[in-house]
């Protein structure tokens, strides 16, 4: 029986949260090791486990994967959340590749949006306020209208190929993250509201949204302090 994936990161969202979401949505149990001290981090580096000296690190299928996007893409493919496989379905290459490239485009966009929130946590208070306000504005004007239109144009339940994918999971994560900053952010987006309700109720996601799951809380001062201490910046 395959070992569970093991995640190495801080006890907080940061760059690991999208990976936790993907695993949870796929119904995959995973273990976590939390970085709390500089010594733990230096040991990981000394043991040669961090290719570029950075976390996230995910141990899976005999590999030690770093780089958030590399990890996300591998997991999405492994758990059939990356579109239709041409070999399986006999789809033409163009049809199936159009699915995976759309998923990539949408996932890249929501990841960009969420990374702004991740980075904002480490800014001085005034800059942080400004950054987070900018995230809300961008979500309302640049990102969410696009996804509302995608859902409107095809009238389907999910973003790509009428099939639940990595793009949907990340969009939900982004919606919830921005709602934490401004609860009214979906007021002009009725289809995104329905999308949110629908995906919230997918059993694996519903479970992940319960208290006591491995979902992490928004960054607070303690989290920022630990990260600064471990990474020494």
């Amino acid at each position, binding site marked *: 029986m395959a070992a569970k994936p093991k995640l190495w990161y801080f006890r907080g969202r940061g760059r690991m949260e999208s990976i936790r979401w993907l695993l949870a949505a796929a119904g995959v149990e995973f273990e976590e090791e939390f970085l709390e001290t500089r010594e733990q981090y230096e040991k990981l580096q000394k043991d040669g486990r961090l*290719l*570029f*000296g950075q976390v996230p690190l995910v141990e899976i*299928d005999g*590999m030690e*994967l*770093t*780089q*958030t*996007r*590399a*990890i996300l*893409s*591998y997991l999405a*493919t*492994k758990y059939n959340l990356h579109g239709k496989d041409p070999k399986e379905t006999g789809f033409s*290459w*163009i049809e199936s*590749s*159009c699915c*995976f*490239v759309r998923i*990539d*485009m949408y996932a*890249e*966009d929501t990841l960009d949006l969420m990374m702004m929130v991740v980075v904002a946590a480490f800014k001085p208070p005034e800059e942080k306020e400004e950054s987070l306000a900018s995230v809300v504005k961008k979500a309302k004007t*640049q*990102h969410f209208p*696009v996804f509302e239109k995608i859902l409107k144009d095809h009238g389907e339940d999910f973003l790509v190929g009428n099939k639940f994918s990595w793009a949907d999971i990340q969009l939900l994560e982004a919606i919830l993250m921005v709602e934490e900053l401004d609860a009214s952010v979906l007021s002009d987006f009725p289809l995104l509201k329905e999308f949110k309700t629908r995906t919230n109720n997918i059993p694996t996601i519903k479970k992940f949204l319960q208290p006591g799951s491995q979902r992490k809380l928004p960054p607070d001062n303690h989290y920022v302090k630990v990260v600064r201490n471990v990474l020494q910046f």
Partner: protein
Amino acid sequence: MAGKPKLHYFNGRGRMECIRWLLAAAGVEFEEKFIEQPEDLDKLKNDGSLMFQQVPMVEIDGMKLVQTRAILNYVATKYNLYGKDMKERALIDMYSEGVADLGDMIMLLPLCPPDQKDAKIAQIKEKTTNCYLPAFEKVLKSHGQDYLVGNKLSKADIHLVELLYYVEELDPSLLANFPLLKGLKTRVSNLPAVKKFLQPGSQRKPPMDEKKLEEAKRIFRIK
């Protein structure tokens, strides 16, 4: 017959250059439509060509693709530069992301305020010689093969070699202690399609100079 891919960007490296390298290395001819004025960018936005209001945008196979990584992954898959299976792809992705992290630091250097520039350059050089180049040298040493993954040319090799040229532009001595990387650079540069791309007169773009920087700031409305 399918039309050639068409690249929409300004006439400079920026975030499109790695896409130009990949297409060129794959031996794929491509067209370019240069954004020369802010109004050109506005027009693309207004006619719905830019899904998230951003370039790069590449018209290919009836699609208007945006997001650099999505475009690169599509091109790499189409032209068999993405490994033979999921695990190889994971390694290729990991290496490509590392290249992109250092590459972004170098790419954004012209936008650094003058009083911070020396410190930034020092930081980039330090990361290059202590973190990134040793990591890639170690990968090549570990298997002794000609390419980073699966003994076959992949997007990871092309991105890395492109980066090595930028490192060399910054400071040629940075490559001194990395014989295997030097070997990779020579090997990939001698592939016919890459050799052609490295000739003067190709679609490869020169480093950013003051004039080009002003042009980019004007087009993208950066202060």
